[in-house]
């Protein structure tokens, strides 16, 4: 049978997902760094790279289609390929959030921050850890690690609430700061949404391994 | 490359020629016999030959009408005995090939095929002629019929065995009992082949002379009852051939020609039946 070629295709598919995940993570991290360093040029670069990540998404989708058509996969293989479809969509959205953060950086331009960045970089750090762990869980087909990773979404939600709280205080105190404070809120929201996408990915990983599809961490 | 090809081609042509020659060689005796028969016999074939009884010894004229009908009658009688037994026996052999009865029957049939035909005549003599105290068409029919049995049985067995197992399975799966399957599905499928086998066997016994010598015995007049002696072409040919009369010699040739014609016609019919045989893929 052509199982050998199929195995190779599956491996390459998985590698493609990991690569795309790493790039999405890098894009988010780069965007947060650009915010910290107030580097508009870096933000521009990240916006431009979004196209490349979209291209990766298309490529992975097409590979999935081809495998579905030619191999008629069943059972575990079927779950994997169907899940890769969904995972690449989540990764693409995460890259869009990186782009969103970069646009906020551009809009803030050289204006002073309303407060020193503490929570946002922390959110990014946790998020990067989640992405690394999720990709590892995907490669290792480790459902437990996926569940644990999804659980970290709570920490990110808490941090986002803190940012909201802080920004509200600042905005009430001084209405002039509203546009700038809003931008930071937007950034925090992008990070929180990105973490939700990682949670989705973890659900998919659990499905690949166990065949159970359920909401993690609602 | 070219020389090897040419050598191969000439070798091919050479061998084809050899095969052709061998075929011609095989057909030659048949052709010669037919030609000789036609040449010597055709002149005596006339309307009288087919309608008149044999004339008195020495007198020209007369015919072999009774011998022709006699041969046909004997074939009919032999068929009545040999065909049912042969077909049913052959069917049994193919449906239950491994039983003790089958193995014994098959062996017996093969032995019977090898028994000299005159011995078959003896058998009928003892069985029918002696108790009845005279020769009869019945005895001749029995002798020929018994010779039919092994041949028909074996060919029937072969043909029925050729019916694909899938046909039987289809019938059985419908809830048709085994015996009905054999009778109403398998046998009809094999009919053309069975008929061919029968015809070939009949053609063979049409020309048998030895078994008729002391069973049918021959008759110069029309046969009125199967318990009476009956004329037959082979017997008549024999009687005329050893006679001193030229006219009878010519009639003997004509008789031989008619006999061969009967055999040819039956074989042709058998071929026709085969060509209409259902294609059993």
């Amino acid at each position: 049978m052509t199982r050998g070629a199929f195995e190779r295709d599956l491996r390459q598919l998985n590698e493609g997902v990991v690569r795309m995940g790493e790039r999405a993570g890098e894009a988010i991290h780069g965007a947060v760094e650009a915010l910290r360093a107030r580097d508009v040029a870096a933000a521009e670069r990240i916006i431009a790279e979004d196209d490349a990540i979209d291209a990766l998404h298309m490529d992975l989708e097409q590979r999935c289609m081809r495998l579905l058509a030619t191999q008629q996969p069943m059972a575990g293989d079927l779950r994997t390929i169907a899940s890769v479809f969904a995972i690449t969509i989540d990764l693409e959205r995460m890259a869009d959030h990186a782009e969103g953060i970069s646009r906020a950086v551009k809009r803030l331009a050289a204006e002073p921050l309303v407060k020193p960045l503490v929570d946002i970089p922390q959110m990014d750090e946790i998020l990067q850890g989640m992405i690394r762990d999720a990709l590892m869980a995907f490669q290792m087909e480790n459902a437990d690690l996926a569940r644990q990773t999804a659980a970290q979404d709570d920490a990110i939600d808490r941090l986002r609430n803190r940012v909201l709280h802080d920004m509200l205080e600042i905005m009430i105190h001084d209405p002039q700061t509203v546009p700038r404070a809003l931008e930071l809120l937007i950034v925090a929201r992008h990070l929180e949404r990105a973490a939700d996408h990682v949670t989705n990915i973890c659900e998919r990983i659990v499905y690949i391994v166990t065949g159970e599809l359920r909401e993690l961490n609602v | 490359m070219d020389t090897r090809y040419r050598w191969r081609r000439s070798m091919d042509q050479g061998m084809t020629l050899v095969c052709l020659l061998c075929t011609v060689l095989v057909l030659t005796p048949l052709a010669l016999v037919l030609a000789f028969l036609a040449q010597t016999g055709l002149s005596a074939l006339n309307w009288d030959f087919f309608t008149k009884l044999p004339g008195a010894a020495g007198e020209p004229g007369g015919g072999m009408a009774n011998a022709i009908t006699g041969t046909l009658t004997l074939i009919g009688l032999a068929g009545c005995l040999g065909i049912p037994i042969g077909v049913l026996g052959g069917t049994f052999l193919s449906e239950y090939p491994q039983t003790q009865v089958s193995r014994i029957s098959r062996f017996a049939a093969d032995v019977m095929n090898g028994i000299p035909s005159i011995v078959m005549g003896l058998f009928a003599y003892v069985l029918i002629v002696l108790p009845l105290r005279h020769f009869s068409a019945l005895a001749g029919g029995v002798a020929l019929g018994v010779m039919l049995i092994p041949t028909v049985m074996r060919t029937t067995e072969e043909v029925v065995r050729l019916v694909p197992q899938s046909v039987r399975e289809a019938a059985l799966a419908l809830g048709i009992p085994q015996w009905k399957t054999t009778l109403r599905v398998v046998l009809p499928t094999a009919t053309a082949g069975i008929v061919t086998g029968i015809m070939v066997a009949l053609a063979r016994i049409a020309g048998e002379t030895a078994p008729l010598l002391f069973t049918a015995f021959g008759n110069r007049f029309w046969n009125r009852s199967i318990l009476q002696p009956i004329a037959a072409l082979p017997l008549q040919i024999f009687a005329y051939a050893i006679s001193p009369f030229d006219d009878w010699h010519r009639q003997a040739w004509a008789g031989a020609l008619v006999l061969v014609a009967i055999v040819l016609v039956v074989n042709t019919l058998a071929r026709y039946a085969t060509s209409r045989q259902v294609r059993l893929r």
Partner: protein
Amino acid sequence: MPKQLEVRNVETHAPTLVERNTAVQTDDLHAWFDRLHALRGITLSVPERQVTAIIGPSGCGKSTFLRCLNRMHELVPSARVSGVVRVHERDIYAPGVDPVLVRRRVGMVFQKPNPFPTMNIYDNVAAGVRLAGERDRRRLDEVVERSLRAAALWEEVKDRLHKPGTSLSGGQQQRLCIARALAVSPEVLLMDEPASALDPAATLRIEELARELAKEITIVIVTHNMQQAARVSDVTGFFLAGQLVEFGSTTGMFTRPIDKRTEDYITGRFG
């Protein structure tokens, strides 16, 4: 009495119990060809009016299993069967049971279409009924038309019922065989790789037909084609080396098989 058939909901994996009567129940069914132990203790329930697929690699015993259900296995000399097989609660191997009558209740269609060569289309379909004793011409006409309609063949052959059965195409011949089997009104129809000798279009028609027929009678289909089993059946059984490895809802088995051997087989790692 209705058996609880567990059907897994693939998304939530909550088992939903579907009430289904059992059409065929086997209990510790063993079968031998002389010394060869072809079936080892098969216990399963074929649900009524559904399509049950039997899959497995060559030589795993799937055809043997099928033939035990209509007592065709015993036609092979030196074949033996032990265990219980119940068709609608009646043990078909009980002493005194006539195998001929069993075969009228449990019909079979074979891999290679096998219409009776000497009969025309009408006679082929009517054969089972006629040879069981039916003589009334009107009744026979009725049965022939009903069966040909059920086999989705009526429209194509209604004007040439007197033509030989072998004059049809492969796919049509197979549908003719199905019509012939249906004519005796079986409760269960066994199909032994019915489409493997046919082209893809004819194959799909047979599959559609199987699903359609399952509305009225129980269908058990043996196939070596995984995708066919997935398309056609509600319930699937996986056989390996004479044993039943897994038996359950088709969707469940093909998205999330329980046994590793099943997973390996359906993903093509062997067989």
